[in-house]
């Protein structure tokens, strides 16, 4: 039986990933800021075959309580933690963060700084136990800064770079670090974005993340075609790119 930590367990993508673990009879610790939503997801995972479910309520921006979460993880799983997924995030309104410095800093805190802080705590735990898999949901938006969402993109880019370094550090300790880069996914985060055929289903994304964590993959684009798309986007020379309205 595997032990699993999901931070941001009320995210649609994270919940689909949790369902895959639950169906294998895993023991899960779910972390989110909204208790009622978290309980509804916990009940679902219990009915779907989870061996055990524990919940921990945390606003990720409450840095002072991060170590409390780590204590909860250690006491929930005295024999070790097999999988950890960091999934939460917010998609800020670009017009707002382009004009309001405090809002830009907040968006960066939620999507990058708090993630980096939590990963730093987790890295210590995994380094000690010398096994396990960490995965973090970044985004294709972190692959290149674009006028339409560069604050979110910068935060995700920071997470991608951070996890790249962490991956190399943890490789020596038999711990995998997977950077997940989804394209558009049909979830509450994109509720206001007009849908197009490129939108992926959160359940397909969840299945892919679960597989990537099991295999300990490095960088995973979901769906896979985004790797090619982002390759092309990154290859466009800056002097041309800056004129494109992307």
């Amino acid at each position: 039986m595997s032990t699993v930590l999901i931070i941001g367990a009320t995210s649609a993508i994270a919940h689909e990933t949790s369902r895959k673990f639950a169906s294998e009879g895993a023991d899960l610790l779910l972390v989110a800021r909204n208790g009622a939503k978290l309980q509804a997801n916990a009940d679902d995972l219990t009915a779907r075959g989870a061996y055990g479910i524990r919940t921990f309520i945390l606003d990720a921006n409450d840095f002072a309580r991060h170590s409390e979460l780590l204590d909860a993880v250690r006491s929930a799983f005295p024999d070790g933690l097999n999988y950890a997924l960091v999934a939460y995030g917010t998609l800020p309104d670009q017009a707002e963060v382009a004009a309001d410095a405090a809002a830009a800093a907040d968006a960066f805190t939620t999507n990058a700084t708090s993630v980096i802080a939590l990963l730093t705590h987790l890295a210590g735990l995994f380094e000690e136990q010398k096994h396990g898999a960490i995965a973090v949901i970044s985004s294709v938006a972190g692959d290149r800064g674009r006028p339409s969402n560069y604050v979110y993109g910068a935060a995700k880019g920071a997470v991608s770079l951070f996890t790249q370094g962490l991956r190399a550090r943890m490789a020596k300790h038999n711990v995998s670090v997977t950077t997940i880069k989804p394209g558009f996914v049909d979830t509450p985060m994109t509720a206001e974005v007009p849908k197009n055929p490129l939108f992926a289903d959160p359940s397909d994304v969840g299945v892919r993340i679960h597989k990537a964590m099991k295999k300990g993959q490095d960088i995973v684009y979901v769906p896979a075609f985004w790797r090619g798309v982002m390759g092309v986007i990154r290859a466009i020379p800056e002097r041309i790119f800056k004129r494109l309205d992307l």
Partner: protein
Amino acid sequence: MGKPTAASQRAFQSWGRYPKSTPERIIAVRDRMNLPKLGKDDSTVLAYGQGRSYGDVCLNNGATLLGTSALDRFIDFNKDTGLLRAEAGTTLSDVLSQTIPQGWFLPVSPGTKFVSLGGAIANDIHGKNHHVAGTFGRHVSRFELVRSSGEKLVCSPKENSELFNATIAGLGLTGLITWIELQMKPIESDQIDVITTRFRSLDEFLALSAEANKESPYVVAWIDGLRSEGRGLLMQGDHAPAGPDASLPSFEADQKARISTPFDAPGWLLNPVSIRAFNAAYFRKQTTNIKRDRVHYNPYFYPLDAIRDWNRGYGKRGLLQYQCVVPFDDSNVTVQELLSRIAESGAGSFLAVIKMFGDIPSPGMMSFPRPGITLALDFANKGEKTIQLFHSLDAIVRQAGGAVYPAKDACMSAESFRAYFPRWEEFSIYIDPAFSSSFWRRVTS
């Protein structure tokens, strides 16, 4: 989801892909404890399940649809009693994947498992076991109904019983169902024992079927819709007992369809010649009069689910289904008349199904099943020609005192609807003022 794009509007059609519908707004409902406001001053709303209804009961042209596919959490499943509580957007397929390994099956199952629990209530669906189990609504012990006023009502035969009876077969018009509680039925294996018997006339079908209904919980027949004499195959089945040859309850992990029809097939693929060849081959495939098999529940209950999006095989214009029930008195004469009318029209039907409903009443005041013979046929949509055929079938069904199934319908007139569902006026008091559907506007105009 804010303003829908053309692509997302295309996704919110019905199974028959007729009539075409353009919802003005699509709102995804994801959190049962924190619902969006239902209904705006100027636009009506309607829940959309999995769009497995053939016609327009799940459409709200020019207005708002509430997408329920993300409302798919289990709330509780008691492995000892088989009592399930789940959100209304959960599909029957998802339910089975969790309950079969524990030895529990759906009390009533339609011909596809890709329908939602909410849709199953709203059309009060029936299955091959109607003669012993009645409709789906009979097995629902409670559900929560949310009205546009913001009220959240738990409905059961005891609490808010009038809304309970109006919502079962209520065509989605009484409000949004957020969760339901359903009593599952125990099984010992995932296999079904089937006996298939060939019949060569309608009278033979009636006699065989009456006998089979006494012996087996599942009875249904396939009938050659191209020929008026009523030849076909009757299939009766029951859950196989646990034992050396029946595997332990399990669930085929691979739920993805093996074959799919990603593009619209050209309409000529389903011409009268190809259908004739298919039907004749199907009838002759069985070389003896009686055949016994043991099969997995998937091909037995959901044969068409193996081909994803098979409705696209009917081409861009889509398909129309005609499903009626006619009372037992003179049912052989009426069914004969219907079959002759169809054969005469030359509009071939590939999948024609015939079954004897039983007399177990449903709590739903607008429920379709009633004692008699039900006949269901798929037709390629040939426009006016097919619609005219349906109107002529309606004339026969009305004459006989029968009814047509709203879940499958895109054509019945307001006059026919009122004849088929005499309690419609009593029902309409329970309709939520902010809810409406393309179907409802059609049959009450």
